């Protein structure tokens, strides 16, 4: 069994079988991470470059750890402090790096479609670590892995994605993945932060009432308000957002059931998620981060074989 793609540009390009294969492989890597020696020699002959044109803590550390746990050689690059600031184009930067014999590229970029563009022009396998407001496939995979771990299966699972749907690549990747795997998805947030035609474009339901959404779902994946991507005023204040869509202990206590809380990070405490919710035992936020390494190991492992 192999993946149907050479690159991981987005969940959009994967089929259900690919997703299952990645999740199943990740499970074995999670076991590797419990061993006294948390490292396997699988990618000893592979060199990976991490190109981060946009800030990142979790994703970058997670990818770097995953690569090291697989024994790959790695180079990390961030746009600040590189020749990008001297006016070099993306393609030139990458081609220069590839001429030093690199097999795989992990890239984060603020422009949607940047990894797709690269995939058309260079021979290395490309893994999208987040491109603009398009996709963040490994985040969706680790979210799926964490949900599967908690609930056993994604089939029929009721997942609410709450917050800034408009600017969220995490939301888009999650929606693709969850509908391919047979979960039910509701997106919830203020009308200004939900794309107008989302219900027609995707297999999702739109809900504007937070209370009703939480009462319906098994899992709430809460997103960050991405102020850096908003170029107009979409809600009046963070305080107002918190009152209408922030998840507090109070709301959760008022529900007739326990909802699992997820968040891709970084959390804006007191905006989309209150501190006592983020730190409660309903939250699996830190498990998500832990699973991220195993999932990224699976992706790198499954794609590494294609580079020759």
């Amino acid at each position, binding site marked *: 069994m192999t993946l149907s793609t050479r690159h991981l540009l987005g969940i959009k390009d994967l089929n259900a079988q690919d997703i299952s*294969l990645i999740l*199943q492989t990740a499970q*074995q890597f999670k076991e*590797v991470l419990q*061993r*006294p020696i948390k490292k*396997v020699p*699988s990618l000893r002959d592979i060199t990976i470059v991490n190109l981060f044109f946009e800030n990142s803590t979790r994703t970058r550390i997670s990818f770097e750890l995953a690569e090291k746990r697989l024994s790959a050689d790695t180079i990390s690059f961030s746009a600040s402090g590189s020749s990008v600031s001297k006016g070099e184009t993306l393609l030139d930067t990458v081609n220069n790096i590839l001429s030093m014999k690199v097999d795989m590229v992990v890239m984060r970029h603020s422009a949607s479609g940047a990894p797709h563009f690269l995939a058309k022009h260079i021979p290395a396998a490309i893994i999208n670590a987040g491109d603009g407001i398009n996709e963040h496939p490994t985040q969706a995979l680790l979210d799926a892995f964490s949900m599967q771990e908690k609930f056993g299966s994604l089939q029929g699972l009721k997942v609410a994605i709450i917050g800034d749907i408009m600017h969220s690549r995490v939301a888009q990747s999650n929606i693709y993945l969850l509908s391919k795997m047979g979960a039910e998805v509701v997106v919830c947030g203020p009308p200004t932060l939900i794309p107008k035609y989302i219900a027609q474009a995707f297999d999702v339901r739109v809900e504007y009432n937070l209370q009703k959404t939480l009462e319906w779902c098994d899992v709430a994946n809460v997103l960050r308000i991405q102020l850096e991507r908003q170029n107009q005023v979409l809600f009046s204040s963070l305080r107002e957002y918190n009152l209408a869509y922030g998840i507090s202990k109070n709301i959760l206590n008022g529900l007739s059931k326990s909802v699992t809380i997820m968040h891709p990070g970084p959390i804006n405490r007191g905006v989309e998620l209150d501190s006592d919710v983020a730190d409660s035992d309903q939250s699996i936020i830190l498990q998500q981060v832990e699973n991220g390494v195993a999932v990224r190991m699976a992706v790198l492992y499954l794609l590494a074989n294609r580079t*020759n």
Partner: protein
Amino acid sequence: MKSILNQQQIQLTIKRLANQIIEDHTDLYQTVLIGIQPRGIYFSDRVVAEISAEIGSATINYGKLDITFYRDDLRTGIHVPNKTSIDFSIEGKKVILIDDVLYTGRTIRASLDALMDFGRPEKVELVVLIDRRYSRQLPIQPDYIGKSIDSIVSQKVKVLWQERDGKDEVVLLDE
């Protein structure tokens, strides 16, 4: 197609191997048995069942090891991993690796690498149901052998198990 072992012979062979292991490992508390995924598990399950029937089950440490991530041919094709479960320490223990067929020795080489990531065993031994002798590509030999056979590269040894294939039998296939 040639039959190498039939159901009754397999049963007797497993009984004999189990008894040899018990004979050499009087203190089974210091010994751990590890089956190699995926196909060695059917055989190791039987061997372990036989040993526990013989001595009473309480003291056996039995684990399963997947070697996919340690293979030396990862660049030539993708291999989907199976589950590894070794939920005890192998540090200072005598480890008995169990696999169905020993051929080139490459699987065992990978198993040894994988095993060392779990700790430093005092000793590692190897049990195989079928030893395809004179076809090793690495200097690896079994300590307990069900049956040694002579075969050529174009032939294939197939081990059938009741649980999976409906009957116990070992056959030699000509390709």
